[in-house]
């Protein structure tokens, strides 16, 4: 276990390093970052002066080393438009995004896990068919369209919930449903298939044979054993949710990191884009690390090589 931890930590460092290269390359894929950053009407001398000032004339490796040295200290440069450190801007918006992400996950799990279990217990019955049809629909629906439809029906037509912005619980409902729907669909389908697999195993038959109540068989024996794969997906889905927040936040004018990034892209404010991509990706990597370690701890049968 100790060596597994060490290995996994080293691997994580490597991935973060790779991410830093990726984020660095965002600006350099076209070959000339100065032209990417400056507006098209910038004069040639201005471009040349800017290139010199930003150090774009240095070898790429030198530039990357400089970028990395700064990034380690949390310095992604100043925002071009807001005159503040890019990382601060991103971190300022983080609580709103996390609030939305957690609400979306809570919605998804509260709906999907019971639905998945029910579908598995009533396999090939009406409840299974209805539940899984809804899940398939949920997986096929673009989340942003669901968001628009919810706004149209619930906020505009029925006037029940606010259209946009961040505030109390009422503001959270629609964005959370929008963001959580895809995850809910995936988790419901996965819970069902995992439950079916576990329910077919010998120890479940034994539990039934020794006269355990069905509730105990399902709750204690089957559900707990199907939980590990479900939890893994949940952690991975959290990354998807953070990414999906970009779109949801745009629809609902939610003041989170995603909206900040979309705005920054249109303003061509690259330090903020770079800081945002990096922060979200690193959160995602760390979540994966936690899951892997928890996984090894929960299920000692897993051997890592």
């Amino acid at each position: 276990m100790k060596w597994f931890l060490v290995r996994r930590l080293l691997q994580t460092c490597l991935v973060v390093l790779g991410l830093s290269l990726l984020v660095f390359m965002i600006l350099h894929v076209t070959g000339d970052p100065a032209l990417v950053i400056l507006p098209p009407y910038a004069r040639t001398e201005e471009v040349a002066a800017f290139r010199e000032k930003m150090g774009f004339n240095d070898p790429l490796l030198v530039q990357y080393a400089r970028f990395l040295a700064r990034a380690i200290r949390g310095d992604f440069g100043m925002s071009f438009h807001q005159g503040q450190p890019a990382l601060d801007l991103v971190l300022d918006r983080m609580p709103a995004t996390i609030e939305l992400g957690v609400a979306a996950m809570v919605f998804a799990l509260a709906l999907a896990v019971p639905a998945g279990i029910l579908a598995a217990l009533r396999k090939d019955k009406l409840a299974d068919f209805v539940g899984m049809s809804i899940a398939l629909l949920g997986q096929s629906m673009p989340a942003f369209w669901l968001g628009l439809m919810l706004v149209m029906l619930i906020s505009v037509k029925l006037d029940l919930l606010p259209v946009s912005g961040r505030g109390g619980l009422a503001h959270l409902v629609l964005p959370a449903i929008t963001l959580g729907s895809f995850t809910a669909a995936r988790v419901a389908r996965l819970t069902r298939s995992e439950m079916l697999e576990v329910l077919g195993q010998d120890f479940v038959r034994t539990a039934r044979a020794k006269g355990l109540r069905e509730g105990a068989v399902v709750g204690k024996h089957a559900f707990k054993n199907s939980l590990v794969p479900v939890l893994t997906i949940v952690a991975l889905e959290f990354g998807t949710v953070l990414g999906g927040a970009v779109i949801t936040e745009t629809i609902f004018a939610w003041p989170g990191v995603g909206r900040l990034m979309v705005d920054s892209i249109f303003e061509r404010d690259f330090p903020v884009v770079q800081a945002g991509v990096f922060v979200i990706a690193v959160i995602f990597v760390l979540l994966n690390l936690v899951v892997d370690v928890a996984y090894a701890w929960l299920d000692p049968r897993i051997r890592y090589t």
Partner: protein
Amino acid sequence: MSARAVRHPRLVFGAAVVAFVVLLGLLADVVSPQDPLRQNLGAKLMPPGSHERGWGWHLLGTDHLGRDILSRMVHGARVSLFVAVIAVLISGTIGTAVGLLSGYRGGRVDDVLMRVTEVQLACPFILLALAVAAVLRPNLRNTVAVLAISGWVIYAKVVRSRVLSLRESEFLAAARALGATGSRLVLRHLLPNMLSTCIVLATVEAARMIILESALSFLGLGVQPPNASWGGMLRDGKLYISSAWWYTTFPGLAIMLTVLGLNMVGDSLRDLLDPRLKV
């Protein structure tokens, strides 16, 4: 045939939906009731079933510039399918090649390639797409490029694990004993064994690509106006959500139906061809 079709209603339904959309996209110029770009500010935001004098019916209404929504949706189908098909072909080819190489060669090559996939998987797709779209000016070609770059990892991972499980199999040992060399082993013996897996993956990925393309266009970072795309229509329609329900409803339905069809085909193909695959 019909008896077998009855046993797979989801496959038949999904395939029918997909075929219908493909047909619409291919024949867009013929079946589209009107010119998707023709504007008429006098006929803007007309509800479904309206009739415009001297021009004809607007079965699904008109948009904020008086363009026929049905016609734009039909042309949007062409864009969505084109982007999805090309992106899947590119990412599938790259991913499969990487997976074969990584799994068959192992060692250093495998290590490096797998680290690269990890880095890419660590970056939620939409962020990657946003970043790239921000630097490369948004247009159709760059949209395809972004989607293709984002999609290859899944093929690489799945193909690699299949290769690993087949590497020590007897048919491969037999081929090797008969004198087959590396490239022949990979192309003639391993690759055919990956095809069913890849077909399932490609179907599900095509569905994902359609959603992602529409999401990018919705954010204004994909297909650019005035060209019709489903995501772009939703972007414009969002502004008229309180006055023109049809503007946002129908393009979204088109996306959903197409993706649903592809997912149904993908699910049933997986059950038929490769039940162990988890997508």
